[in-house]
């Protein structure tokens, strides 16, 4: 099929709208695409401190339209996903064509937690350019959810990612509750917060073990796996599934968790503290490890501001993603860790500090847990639309939910990995090939939630 270009006037009008919002401080939250009556409708959802604005573009199939990447670089992966599903393309393409020797790495490798293929342009052993091929994780989740009931969708979302399944499920439940005006009991909100902190801890530990493997520290990785084993032991007291599948429900939780159970979970979890501090001190105090981490994975300040999660705080920017949530984190006393240098070392130290912070918050939540019901009656058979932004293990997650008479009409997920992923190639430029797995591990790309 021949590709046609949008007219210059239409293209500059669309780009002009993005620039206007950019200059007013808006950021790209999500790009949604739908096909109707031989048109592809693109919705650029922009957000500034909770204020949502939508820029729409209606494009005939097989047309090329301007890429949003020039204005919002974080939109590259979202555009890529759209081109995989709809007959539309974006210009200019941001791929680089290496003129040096090219090697392929992936899609499967022990140091790659999820399948993805790297095409690396090398000069000696230094990476000059990177082209990343995704799609190995794609399960068609968003399409599969259409037409289903809320409970079925929740079950699928909870199994989307081992690290973020609970966060995605919670974001979906929050979207439903927002849409139907459901008031969730206080205890359920606190328990959800407890489970979220457990999820963050789990994700931080896995990121650390992956980094330890990438550094070649097998014994240290085994030590971190023992901590993950401890986490699993604690999680098994709450749910038979380590990612707490089946615990969430619209209106609260499907089951109560007694205060005794919370205390036991907390006691098991707190046993990690000494080990975590010891590992942190070891890594910080070993010059070869610190040096290797500091010279790799440097993200420039401008890019860091557009990213999410630890990458932002590693650049010295104080941003607490927990505050995006409707859960009562503001009632807890804590200081969000941040670091300087915007390199692998800063991000790894934040993984340690964040794991320690989760331990502290789990302790506080268990101590201050209110009494009462964990579920309020609610009906999910109405219609409506909601956009929510919620914290997840690696930053923020945005969810668009449209429901029609109790059945899901449309679901669009934008995970933290989709925002951070486009910045990986530029970060890899100048990296020695041996350090490639290390940089990838500190980017913490949860590809299963990105590719769905």
């Amino acid at each position, binding site marked *: 099929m021949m590709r046609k270009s949008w007219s210059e006037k239409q293209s500059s009008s669309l780009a002009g709208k993005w620039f206007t919002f950019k200059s007013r401080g808006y950021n790209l939250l999500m790009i949604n695409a739908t096909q109707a009556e031989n048109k592809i409708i693109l919705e650029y959802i922009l957000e500034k401190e909770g204020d949502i604005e939508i820029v729409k573009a209606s494009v005939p199939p097989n047309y090329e339209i301007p890429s949003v990447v020039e204005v919002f670089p974080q939109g590259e992966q979202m555009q890529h996903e759209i081109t995989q599903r709809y007959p539309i393309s974006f210009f200019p393409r941001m791929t680089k064509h290496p003129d040096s020797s090219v090697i392929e790495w992936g*899609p499967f490798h022990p140091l790659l937690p999820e399948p993805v293929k790297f095409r690396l342009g090398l000069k000696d052993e230094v990476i000059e350019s990177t082209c990343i091929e995704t799609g190995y994780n794609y*399960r068609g989740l968003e399409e*599969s959810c259409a037409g289903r009931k809320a409970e079925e969708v929740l079950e699928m979302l909870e199994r989307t990612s081992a690290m973020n399944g609970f966060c995605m499920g919670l974001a979906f439940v929050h979207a439903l509750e927002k849409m139907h005006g459901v008031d969730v009991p206080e205890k359920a909100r606190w328990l959800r917060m407890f489970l979220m902190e457990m999820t963050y801890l789990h994700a931080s530990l896995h990121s650390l073990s992956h980094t330890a493997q990438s550094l070649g520290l097998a014994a240290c990785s085994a030590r971190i796996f023992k901590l993950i084993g401890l986490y699993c032991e604690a999680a098994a007291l709450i749910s038979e599934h380590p990612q707490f599948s089946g615990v969430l429900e619209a209106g609260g939780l499907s089951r109560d968790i007694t205060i005794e159970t919370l205390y036991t979970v907390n006691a098991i979890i707190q046993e990690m503290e000494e080990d975590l501090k010891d590992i942190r001190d070891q890594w910080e105090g070993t010059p070869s490890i610190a040096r290797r981490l500091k010279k790799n994975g440097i993200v420039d300040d401008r890019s860091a501001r557009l990213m999410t999660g630890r990458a932002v705080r590693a650049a010295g920017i104080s941003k607490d993603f927990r505050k995006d949530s409707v859960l009562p984190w503001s009632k807890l006393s804590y200081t969000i860790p941040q670091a300087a240098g915007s390199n692998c070392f800063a991000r790894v130290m934040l993984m340690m500090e964040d794991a320690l912070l989760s331990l502290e918050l789990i302790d506080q939540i268990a101590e201050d847990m209110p009494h009462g019901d964990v579920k309020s009656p609610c009906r999910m058979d109405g219609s409506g639309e909601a956009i929510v932004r919620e914290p997840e293990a690696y930053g923020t997650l945005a969810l668009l939910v449209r429901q029609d008479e109790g059945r899901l009409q449309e679901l669009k997920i934008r995970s933290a990995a989709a925002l951070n992923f486009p910045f990986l190639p530029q970060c890899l430029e100048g990296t020695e090939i041996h350090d490639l797995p290390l940089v990838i591990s500190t980017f913490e790309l949860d590809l299963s939630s990105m590719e769905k």
Partner: protein
Amino acid sequence: MSWLLNNGLRSISILVVQAGGCRGCALQFSMGMSLENEIKGISVTGNPKHADALLVTGCINEKSREAILQLYEQMPEPKAVIAAGACSCSGSLFRTSENNLYTTEDILPVDAWIRGCTPDMHEMLEAVVRAIGASLEKEGSRKI
């Protein structure tokens, strides 16, 4: 280690393929390997030509199917295939997806299945041993 000696083996190398999915099964296996590795004598390899068994987790789409078949072709005989987790065994919740997802059995001859979401790590290691035994039987108990 008696099962290793009975099979005439010194160690088993596993090629783990996280085909696409939540990666819970792959993480469970990594944890099992990390905590029980020395007892079982099983190691993970990234080289298909060193692998005795292929452990597949997650849903397989068209793109990952091609990559998995390439890896399987490169593995030396005798070779075992293990399907780990609900997605790999039956497609789980994603079996009705429009993306033409495959189970491991659809594309490869499977020697052992580990069902469950998420399966137990000890069961996974036991299944590896079972699968190796089955593949050796198929090959007429060839010594490696």
